[in-house]
């Protein structure tokens, strides 16, 4: 199913696409999906900033747009990551407020240090912005650690913005977190924005003939 399909159109799309038997078997699920769709439509309108000043918002958006840039596909800017971070800072990530208010001037100081005459991160060129962030990134390459859960409390401002940008880009767009606007983050990574799926799921199970018993156990194999 095309991931452009709006969640509002979800039920009608589904109803034309699959068998009635499957629908009745999954009816409770569809009611649940409808609830989600309703919630999503309620949370769709972008709001004013609750924490950032307009100037701060411009800076944070510019930083997030270097972390996940707009290329031939949408980036942090299109996903509304700055709105996600703004909301986070007055809700679940209140503890990070200070890190942001103190971190932004520090970034601007670094901009002035590297590029005298430029006062703001957002005023620097893309190449300059990358150099500023390089200078702030304590880890040059990713560690191969598998987290059970991502940590909100990051070790530095840059790390906080990096993690928050990723979260704001990929959070469930139906949540109340104001990130991943219109599901563009999921679209970029190839995740269809739907609440249910049917097999075949991918390339390798498309033509899979079904499980066949291994000859030695074939005589016993029946469900």
């Amino acid at each position: 199913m095309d991931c452009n399909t709006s969640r509002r159109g979800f039920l009608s799309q589904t109803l034309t696409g699959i068998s009635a038997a499957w629908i009745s078997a999954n009816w409770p699920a569809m009611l649940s999906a409808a609830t989600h769709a309703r919630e999503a439509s309620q949370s769709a309108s972008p709001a004013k900033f609750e924490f950032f000043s307009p100037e701060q918002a411009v800076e944070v958006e510019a930083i997030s747009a270097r972390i996940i840039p707009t290329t031939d596909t949408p980036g942090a800017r299109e996903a509304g990551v700055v709105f996600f971070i703004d909301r986070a800072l007055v809700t679940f990530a209140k503890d990070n407020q200070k890190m942001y208010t103190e971190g932004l001037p520090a970034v601007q100081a670094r901009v002035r240090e590297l590029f005298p005459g430029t006062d703001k991160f957002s005023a620097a060129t893309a190449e300059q912005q990358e150099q500023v962030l390089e200078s702030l990134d304590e880890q040059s390459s990713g560690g191969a650690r598998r987290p059970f859960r991502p940590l909100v409390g990051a070790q530095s401002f840059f790390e906080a913005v990096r993690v928050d940008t990723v979260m704001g880009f990929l959070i469930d767009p139906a949540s109340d977190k104001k990130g991943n606007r219109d599901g563009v983050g999921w679209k970029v990574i190839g995740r269809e924005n739907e609440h249910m799926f049917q097999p075949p799921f991918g390339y390798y199970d498309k033509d899979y003939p079904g499980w066949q018993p291994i000859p030695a156990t074939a005589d016993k194999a029946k469900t």
Partner: protein
Amino acid sequence: MTLDLPKYKTTDEVDFVVIGSGAAGGIVAKELSTNGFRVVVLEQGPYLTEKDFVHDEIKVLNQDLLTNHPSLQPNTFRKTPNDKAKQQRAIAYGRLVGGTSTHFTANFWRFHEIDFHERSKVGAVAGSTLSDWPITYADLEPYYTKVEWEIGVSGQAYASPFDPPRSKPYPMPPLPTKSSGVIFERAARKLGWNPFPAPMAILSQPRPGRSACINCGFCLAFACEVGAKSSSLATAIRMAEKTGRCEIRPNSYVHRIELDANGRATGAVYFDEKRNVQRQKAKAVVVCANGAETPRLLLLSANKQFPNGLANSSGYVGKNLMFNSGALSVGVFEHPLNDYKGFAVSRILHDFYELDPDKVGFHGGGGLDARFDTTPINFALGMLPAGTPRWGKGFKDVLSHNFTRTVEILCHGTSLPVENNSFSLDPELKDAWGLPALRMTYKDHPDDVKLSNWLNARAAELLDAAGAQKSWSFPAGEQEFSVHLLGTCRMGNDPKTSVINPDHQTHDVKNLFLCDGSSLVTSGRGQPTMTIEALAFRASDRITALAMRGDLNV
């Protein structure tokens, strides 16, 4: 339909108070209430239902919507009894009605015969308290079947040549095969191994009031919005409530079990939602609070008769903690698998369940499964290959390419029991209610780490045979965190080396029963919930028999 749910007074001496409503507690409550007893279930977490379950990774994972919250119930960790424990999150368990079964992966294979008598078969293992169970696989077999049929497990009987005998096939066919499963199956067969459809406690066909799996993709660590995951919440708890004899009382944090002058438990003392202390009277007590909280409750209930903890004359309460060893390899394939769709696991193999210690140089065994259980944010922050840029176009390119093309091969294996590995009460740290926090002491037996890395080498071979474009393994080290909490009040015939007898009755207090992960004598090879649930069905039968005989005055 609205059920007429009973409300018991705390002064009303019910037949049983069950502490905990998870995998074991839900089933015990259902069985005892079905058998005619009056039951109160005290659950420390809230009573959430399907409408509360969301795909919001921050709410569920970071904010612990479903799990114990480290700021309310912190714990400490140390590797050995000689170390000073530091505050560090070491456990995650479901803290809501339905417990951890609401958010588990739902791998539901049975333990094999070897798991019950490994000590006799392989002999003593240096540095381990490895013991035989006082019951056998055959004793538990009817109850495994009961779990499959009553709770709902999808699977293909007789598909693995290593499976133990069974009295009945599965009640429903396996879930669909994911691309990761197809890749895994083809590569494993190329290597001469025996992959088979994963038995999963997730419905492949609808049941009354429950949908079949809709493959939403937010499964491990998330609770099911449609009742397809066979949690206690979606199954046993509802059956218990339907009897009209069982009250589920959420937000009830039990912190003490008291005895009368005759040494019999009188019920449970708990904090209600407003943190007022309440005492629920009961003729008998069944603790199903999980492998961490059950021993903690006994230790918190120390009294004059049991200064080292209730029912702890053996000194074994909290000891012999086992996690299951584990390791992970990851592969990236040419074409999209879209494995984010659906439940986590569709193929597993158990060719390495019983390894020969003389050949491999360590004890234990395990298996491999093919899965994708990583939700988008976790994936972006933790599942890209080493060396991937952490931000910028390079990061975005790899993330965009890999998310639909990644498969995980998870190795799961034995944890040998080690006496020092334990839960105890931290001497300093308190939880938000002022109770001593849990202190975990844990250092994997060296064989467990060897086993994990041996299995991980097989996972790497499999990814090579599968033609992965890129693959890597996370080396297994000593674990410091777990969701499997096993062995801490082990079952046995000898009161000196075990806490409960084969009826799940504590050796020391005749109307006090324990049933959950703490009852396990060995860890199996991973995925313990199926066995915990089979034990819960069996324990309920045993407790009912004792009650009918008049032993419990119920």
